[in-house]
């Protein structure tokens, strides 16, 4: 493991219940990252399900899979940011995702493995591509994700 959850929280502003990356397994700064999130039956998104809910109801929502991927991509960006001091001052905002294919689902007991690569950086934005895997199944492929990077002070006003 390259980064544990405590180290991730030093880099990302996301907190419970939206801290959706558990660990970073590997990174090539400025190029690619592999990060994971475990899914449990205790996820807040399953809390409202009645006892009668069948197994399909426990598919982890696609929106949260994308958010989790986005946080992994954000970590990739932050780990390559120069100078490192810049990191704390930038807030990442999801801009757009293009040509995403949802090919499968993930359920409690399974682990999302995000494989993101950095395609292009701008001074105030970054573009990623990648895939989400659950063991040997690819469940999402993303051709392009655009993320805006804004100074935190610009968002407080």
């Amino acid at each position, binding site marked *: 493991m390259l980064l544990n959850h405590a180290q991730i929280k030093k880099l990302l502003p996301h907190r419970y219940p939206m801290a959706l990356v558990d660990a970073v397994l590997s990174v090539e700064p400025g190029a690619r990252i592999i990060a994971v999130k475990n899914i449990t039956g205790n996820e807040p998104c399953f809390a409202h399900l009645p006892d009668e809910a069948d197994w399909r109801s426990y598919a982890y929502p696609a929106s949260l899979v994308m958010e989790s991927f986005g946080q992994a991509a954000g970590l990739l960006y932050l780990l390559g940011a120069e100078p490192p001091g810049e990191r704390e001052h930038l807030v990442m905002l999801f801009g757009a995702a293009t040509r995403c294919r949802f090919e499968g689902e993930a359920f409690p007991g399974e682990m999302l493995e995000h494989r993101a690569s950095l395609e*292009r950086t701008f001074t105030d934005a970054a*573009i990623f591509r990648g895939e989400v895997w659950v063991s040997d199944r690819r469940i999402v492929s993303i051709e392009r994700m655009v993320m805006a990077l804004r100074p935190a002070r610009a968002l407080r006003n």
Partner: protein
Amino acid sequence: MAPSSTAAERMQVMRTMIAEILEIEPEEITETSNFQEDHGADSLRAIEILASLEKEFHVEIPQQELVNMTDLTSVYRVFQQYAGWSEE
């Protein structure tokens, strides 16, 4: 795209790709319709257009050229300059 493509072919590829990003029909984009004013593009869409065309045409465009990429004709001119396409 093949290096031997004509200006009209390149322009058509650009139009199709830009339309997809702006989520409109390619026919809506004329040579001089303004991405921002006529098609509701914002700065992130402009970045997306730049990055996807860079990839298609295998050329890198400096970020400061974004301000000059306001419509199809101006996008073509910027890429023509950096990719070294001849005037036709």
